[in-house]
């Protein structure tokens, strides 16, 4: 188990290093002249040169690469142009707020998708199965800003049940905060529902066709007992194992949902940085998101391993 963890952590470091290189390439090499990119085509050459000197982007590329990697490793992620503060603390503060949103969405969608998959898989090919399958197909294909706008229109404008903004005013109670978070969380959950539902449904069908479920049915257990005690655990663990792979979707969803609902998280921070051409801040956001994405993968693997003794054994063997 420990060796498994160590291997995964080593892989995490490697992924982050590759991502840091990629981010460097995207923000430092791709634009050619960074000062020009930031200041636009009408800025004077002197201003551009001054900005490049200030950013250190007038130095040769290998040197810039080394100082970027060293900065990333030592926690010096540069300064944001727009906010005029160091990048790392700003990114860290916004990241925490986004995590609240992401965790709330996962906590909402996982039980919902698993229950829907059990109900659908129990009568495969039935009307409930087909309806849920079609709904999941449509939801999984539709961009989150599309569902989000419809949710806003229905629940915030027409019915006037929920607030438009995701962030509650200062000093609001817990219930009020939840009310503000409801729409963005629902929007993210709808985005993720499709994948979790389809995955779990396939696992439910596999479990239903297995020998141990046939044994359970033949020895006279009630259908409810078979579903909850035998099918559910075997269908849920693989779903949790793939949950980590969905973090990329979740992050992409965060950028859109936070922008749509005006929630000050890492997604809207990155979006603002992209629009303002705040290159250091955008690079920092991308790096933080990638690291969290990789960590999420590991967490999901660990959770699946802890829940399933067979995976646990296999993991320590392979380690």
């Amino acid at each position, binding site marked *: 188990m420990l060796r498994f963890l160590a291997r995964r952590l080593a892989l995490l470091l490697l992924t982050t290093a*590759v991502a840091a*290189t990629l981010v460097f390439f995207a923000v430092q090499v791709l634009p050619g002249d960074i000062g020009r990119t930031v200041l636009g085509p009408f800025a004077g050459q002197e201003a551009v040169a001054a900005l490049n000197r200030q950013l250190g982007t007038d130095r040769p590329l290998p040197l810039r690469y080394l100082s970027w990697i060293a900065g990333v490793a030592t926690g010096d992620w540069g300064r944001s142009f727009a906010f005029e503060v160091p990048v790392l603390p700003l990114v860290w503060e916004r990241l925490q707020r986004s995590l609240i949103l992401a965790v709330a969405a996962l906590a909402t969608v996982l039980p919902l998708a698993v229950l829907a998959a059990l109900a659908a898989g129990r009568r495969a090919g039935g009307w409930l199965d087909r309806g849920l399958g079609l709904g999941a197909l449509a939801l999984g294909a539709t961009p989150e*800003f599309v569902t989000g706008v419809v949710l*806003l229109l229905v629940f915030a404008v027409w019915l006037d049940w929920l607030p438009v903004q995701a962030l509650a005013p200062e000093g609001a109670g817990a219930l009020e905060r939840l009310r503000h978070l409801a729409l963005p969380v629902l929007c993210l959950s709808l985005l993720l529902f499709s994948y979790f539902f389809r995955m779990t449904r396939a696992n439910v069908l596999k479990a239903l066709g297995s020998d141990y479920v046939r044994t359970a049915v033949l020895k006279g257990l009630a259908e409810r007992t078979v579903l909850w005690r035998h099918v559910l655990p075997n269908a849920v663990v693989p779903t949790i194992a793939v949950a980590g792979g969905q973090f990329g979707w979740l992050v992409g969803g965060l950028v859109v949902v936070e922008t749509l609902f005006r929630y000050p998280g890492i997604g809207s921070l990155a979006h603002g940085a992209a629009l303002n051409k705040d290159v250091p801040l955008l690079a920092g956001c991308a790096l933080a998101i990638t690291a969290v*994405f990789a960590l999420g993968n590991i967490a999901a693997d660990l959770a699946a391993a802890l829940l399933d003794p067979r995976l646990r054994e296999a993991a320590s063997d392979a380690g």
Partner: protein
Amino acid sequence: MRAEAAWRMPLATGLAMAGLLVLAAAAAPWLAAHPPEAIDFLALQQPPSAVHPLGTDQYGRDVLSRILHGARLVLLVAPAATALGLALGSLLGLAAAYAGGWRDEALMRALDGAMALPTVILAMLVLTALGPSTVNVVLVIGLAFAPLVARSVRAAALAEARKEYVLAAQMRGESTAYILVFEILPNIYPVLLVEASLRLGYAIFTAATLGFLGLGAQPPTPDWGLMVSESQALLTVAPWLVLAPVAAIAYAVIAVALIADGVQALLDR
């Protein structure tokens, strides 16, 4: 009978929906009663009427005309991005399978690293560097898809490489490049077909999202995603402005998702 229906219905519905979209896009210059970018200060933000079936936006532009011309944009951007991703990904996947050994390993690990960046984040980085434009959106989506395609193509090519017809070609003394492109590639077409239909849906999805984020097509382009973000502030006073592009996007992605679902079920038969 039932297994047959499992692919027929979605595929037929999806193809019919997509066909209608292609027709509407092709006939846009004749169907649209107004130029998509024509500003009319005498008809600002009008609700749907006989002259403007879907109303007008805050600049008096006819929403239906903009939706129809937007369909042309979608049908250019998404297939182009998908084709780029498929071509690049197939090349990388075949190259990895061809090289084998440590080169294969290194290439695949590098692609894993590239996939560690979520697509939207990668797109934001590249579009900030290159500047937002429709062409750059095609480039960035194609680039983001390439590693995913490469993975499936490589796996399929490796599985195929052990088959007898490949051995026979090797015995004939064909070069490995010839075998990969003319023997293996035609035989892994199911993988390419599934990838193409899946990626096409995600391409529409991603292009619409980038438009909404203001990183894709720029005003006054009638891009559906951009139309949503432009009229989002008017949600309470002029909901038709948001609902029209939202419905158009949902229609397009669901049509392609149905096709992809049908293709997968058809090949899994």
